[in-house]
């Protein structure tokens, strides 16, 4: 049986000793070994997330580097009452990776023929959804969406595509894509609460 293309099962990394929240608190006190424990727990999965957005391994490593430096510097601003520590770390990473992607696109005058013709290396959105854990409500709620709306939302989140890029990729008018996504997000919110 041929190997499926890197479709590793959904992976939830083992938490760092003491948990993410305690790790951030220790970082805020200046304990570099706490940052290292967070790195050991999350760097691999974070590289995967950054790679889907930035595609190039070296850029993904830069994003993870920057994210951990930001996490270190700003650990004391993390407020456990507003969300989970792990989600905060990933929000830092995603924000940094998306900013790098936009900066890249500007520098490279985007849509170079090479880029435009190679949307591959980007996983099919249905495959992404298939790998969502069945226990997650998100999977059930995405499954309920119309396939094209589901694809647009997943591609945007996973690969960092903007409205305009999605319109190009899906060969649809910009306004259509925008309203699909809004309706898709609206349904998701209702479904997820």
């Amino acid at each position, binding site marked *: 049986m041929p190997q499926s293309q890197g*479709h*590793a099962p*959904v*992976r*939830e990394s083992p938490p760092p000793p003491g948990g993410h929240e305690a790790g951030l608190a220790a*970082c805020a*006190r*200046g304990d*570099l070994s706490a*940052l290292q424990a967070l790195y050991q727990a999350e*760097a*691999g*999965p974070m*590289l*995967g*997330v950054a*790679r*889907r957005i930035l595609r190039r*391994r070296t850029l*993904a*490593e830069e994003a*993870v*580097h920057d994210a*951990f*430096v*930001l996490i*270190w*510097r*700003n*650990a*004391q*601003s993390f407020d456990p009452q507003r*969300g989970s520590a*792990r989600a905060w770390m*990933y*929000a*830092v990473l*995603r*924000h*940094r990776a*998306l900013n790098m992607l936009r900066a890249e696109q500007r520098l490279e005058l985007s849509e170079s023929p090479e880029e435009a013709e190679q949307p591959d290396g980007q996983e099919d959105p249905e495959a992404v959804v298939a*790998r*969502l*854990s069945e226990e*997650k409500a*998100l*999977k059930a709620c995405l499954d309920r969406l119309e396939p094209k709306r589901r694809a647009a939302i997943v591609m*945007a*989140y*996973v690969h960092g595509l*903007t*409205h*305009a890029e*999605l319109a190009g990729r899906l060969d649809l008018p910009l306004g259509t894509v925008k309203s699909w*996504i*809004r309706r898709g*997000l*609206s349904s*998701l*919110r209702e479904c997820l609460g």
Partner: protein
Amino acid sequence: MSGEDRDLLAGEYVAGLMSPEAEQAFARRLTRDKALAALVEDWRARLAPLDDTAAAEPAPPALWDRIAASAAAAPAPARAAPRRAPWRFRSGWWESLAFWRGAGLAAASAAALLLVALGVQTWRAERTPTMVAVLLSDAARPVAVVNTFEDGRVELVPLAAIEVPQGRALEIWTMWDKALGPKSIGVIPRAETTPLRLDRVPLAPDQFFAISIEPAGGSPTGAPTGPVVAQGVTNTAL
């Protein structure tokens, strides 16, 4: 704007759909609008499981080394003196151009910064210096202070901005014996309070310290090659 619109905008922000301009404007609003920030938090929690569908990649030890070096060069605010007020909301620092300018340089010169990282562990003890060197520019303007402490710690504290050209870094030197010449004790991407590791270097009154501009990884020759932006000698603290 209706509540519904605000919520969907928050979703679009978290999904990363906004143009850079719209995103920056939105992030600025987040710093003032707690309710909007809470909506963003909810969307992050909703969509976070998608991050776990990415196939993990091996994380090279060298990447950790670079992060440790950069973290040491960019101390957590908790350790910076004087302590700053906690950030009100998290989006402000993401957008800080000044920070990213520095972080980009930090990435470029990170390997050399390992030297500095080694000094971090001892950084938090008592803070009364035993010796002080005020480093002056050619125009006799104070640019930085080197403090030495009884337990052997040494720190560099900048007093003025030092312009570091793109792709260059600041290298810190000390000299205790003219015959041996200056020895490098650290490379930093930009002027900021930095612990220095001097445990293999003698330390005495009238010891010479200097900062020069060097290539991002530090001087290729082991001696200062670029312009010296500040220099001075240690004096016993009063």
